[in-house]
């Protein structure tokens, strides 16, 4: 793992330094409109070294090679390291097509001219996606730079067998009081009510997002992250008051474990429920089909009736084409196929547990858990991407992450912490 990380950073730092800011425009669209399917060998940068992730990447690569006759070189990377090194990667010798995320994180790089305009691909297969996906794929100049492939909900995950043993039915939790009763009942049986990890600093952002959306609504949440509302607002303090009410039901080692630890708590039946993105379900499936069949997801319960359960974090993953890639036309062909109905079908056929972002996808092959993911996302009126994808990058991890960690350490300090968060937002340079 670290070998690969080092490989990327070393290579890209050197090349990135050499290329500097200059070569960006060079990619251009010299070859645009050549229209031929025979576009030569291409490279695909994949994110995620987990077994389940590598498996579907390889299956899809093989399917594309078979369907198109083109040769694809697949380079898999550690997800976090890839994310951290992306700007160096894109300035060096990036793969032609690579796995990335929609929204703010894509727009930033598109604005910098590091991503290739893929509007032409949208012209061809755009009718396979809902309009909201096109918006999420569009850069600030109105052109598309991204093709969505999959999305997943952040919801309450639990094991059906555990809940049955406890005599609880999370599907019928309607209110905050019911939710607290459920946590209490789980705790009484000696289990962790609500598993949480925050060693990485981002995991607990999911809980903050959903509490804020439930209590203050979608608009306030979005405005807060855009700096139009204040962190010192009493509404934000209210969110942390609810967060604090959940702490007694959490594991005592929140800051010791990361998302893998949360997954393992659920896997080993040590906890009742946890809030997490459904992507980890692939690891359950890798372990055993029985564990996967036991996994279930429901939306986080309503807190404020005014907002009900109208919002959910459902990040969209997909693909971009690097402007500095060697084979831009090839990259476009690749992402076009990968995001298309056929490409996503190949991915689903390989046993991947994500749900397709493609409107026309045949969902008849979905297993019950995938159908439930769709139902959970479908219920929500507003979709958010996740805190670290919905706000400035120099704010999310450097400021919000330690603030939530400090809150989990000493909840009584929350007012001081929020004042500091607001002060740090105010001090951010206008970029």
């Amino acid at each position: 793992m670290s070998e690969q990380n080092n490989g990327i950073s070393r290579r890209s730092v050197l090349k990135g330094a050499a290329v500097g800011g200059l070569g960006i425009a060079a990619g251009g669209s010299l070859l645009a409109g050549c229209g031929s399917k025979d576009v030569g060998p291409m490279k695909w940068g994949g994110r995620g070294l987990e077994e389940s992730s590598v498996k579907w990447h390889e299956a899809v690569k093989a399917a594309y090679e078979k369907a198109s006759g083109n040769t694809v070189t697949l380079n898999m990377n550690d997800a976090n390291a890839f994310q951290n090194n992306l700007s160096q990667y894109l300035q060096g010798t990036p793969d032609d097509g690579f796995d990335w995320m929609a929204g703010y994180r894509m727009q930033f790089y598109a604005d910098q001219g590091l991503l290739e305009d893929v509007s032409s691909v949208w012209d061809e297969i755009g009718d396979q996606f809902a309009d909201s996906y096109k918006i999420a794929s569009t850069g600030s100049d109105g052109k598309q730079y991204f093709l969505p492939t999959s999305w997943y909900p952040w919801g309450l995950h639990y094991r059906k067998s555990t809940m049955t043993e406890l005599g609880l039915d999370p599907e019928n939790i309607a209110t905050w009081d019911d939710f607290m009763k459920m946590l209490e009942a789980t705790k009484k049986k000696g289990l962790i009510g609500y598993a949480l990890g925050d060693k990485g600093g981002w995991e607990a952002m999911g809980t903050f997002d959903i509490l804020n959306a439930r209590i203050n609504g979608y608009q306030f949440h979005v405005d807060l992250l855009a700096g139009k509302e204040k962190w010192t607002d009493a509404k934000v303090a209210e969110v942390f008051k609810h967060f604090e009410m959940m702490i007694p039901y959490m594991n005592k080692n929140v800051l010791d474990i990361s998302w893998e630890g949360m997954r393992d708590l659920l896997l080993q039946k040590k906890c009742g429920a946890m809030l997490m993105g459904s992507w980890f379900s692939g690891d359950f499936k890798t372990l055993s089909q029985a564990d996967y069949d036991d996994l279930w997801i429901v939306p986080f319960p309503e807190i404020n009736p005014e907002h009900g359960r109208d919002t959910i974090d459902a990040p969209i993953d997909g693909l971009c084409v690097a402007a500095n890639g060697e084979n831009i036309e090839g990259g476009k062909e690749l992402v076009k196929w990968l995001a298309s109905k056929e490409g996503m079908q190949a991915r689903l056929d390989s046993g991947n547990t994500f749900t397709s972002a493609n409107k026309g996808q045949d969902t008849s092959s979905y297993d019950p858990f995938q159908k439930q993911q769709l139902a959970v996302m479908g219920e929500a009126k507003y979709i958010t991407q996740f805190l670290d994808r919905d706000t400035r990058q120099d704010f999310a991890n450097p400021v919000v992450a330690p603030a939530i960690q400090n809150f989990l350490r000493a909840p009584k300090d929350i007012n001081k912490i929020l004042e500091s968060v607001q002060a740090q937002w105010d001090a951010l340079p206008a970029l």
Partner: protein
Amino acid sequence: MTSTATNTTVRRRRAFSRKDRITLSAFVGIPTAFHILLVWVPAIGTIGLSFTFWSGIHISDIKWAGIENYNNIFTGTPVFWEAIWHNVIWLLWFGLIATPLGILLAYQIDRQIRGHRFYESAFFVPVVLSLAVTGIIWNFMLQPGGFVQGILGRDISNPISFYGNYDINTYVILGIASWRHIGYIMLLYLSGLKSVDPSLKEAAAIDGATEWQTFRKVILPTMKPVNIIIIVITVIDSLRAFDIVYMIYGSGTGWPILGILVFQNISGGGMSMKGAAYAVILFALCIGPMITYLKQSFAEDVK
């Protein structure tokens, strides 16, 4: 007078043939060029960058920021002071506990106490591991579900919080760092001690010096070059600490330290200038004590 001087100059010049001069300038010039290119250019670039606002991508987007980034760090970033505090504790711990322990160990092993070969190899083993590997090993040992937790009969829902409990995690990290540092210092000191002429110690013993007096008045002054190296290593290792913390906490702020802040801000998007400012602060902290100390010791040598 004049003619002698001229003669000397001429003779000196003649001492180097044309070939010699080419060879010499190549031997001096090429490393110097690389040094300037790979050390000074990036260093000065980083210092320059720390006074700008820049998204880190297009040169044309750079905007002058004056001391704004530093102002932001010193007055608007509480995590910076946490990181500084951790670096200071690290330095104090290494300076007052780990390094003296390493010296003591080296001295005892040099006296060939019973089992000295065993101690020597036991303390030497961690030194061959890189700091990153040290971090990985101890993370596997102490994390929830890790080896030590298993021995203590703690499963992942009920572990001892080694890394997340702020009352103890600083000492856990420092303990891990010392595990390697003590052996490293021991090794350096031991090789120095081996070169001390045993007759000096015998002479001191004949004059009736105690063990402590011998060490302080005879061994320590003889070991001056090694002492300087050890002090330099202790200070620099404490300030640039990064690897172990990164392996355990990742690039997040689980246990902030300056090295992590540099990395966190430079990787990812849009804040490389703040990372550069952290790097400059780190550089200033390292270079200050180093120059002062080296200057002093060289001055004494000249005397």
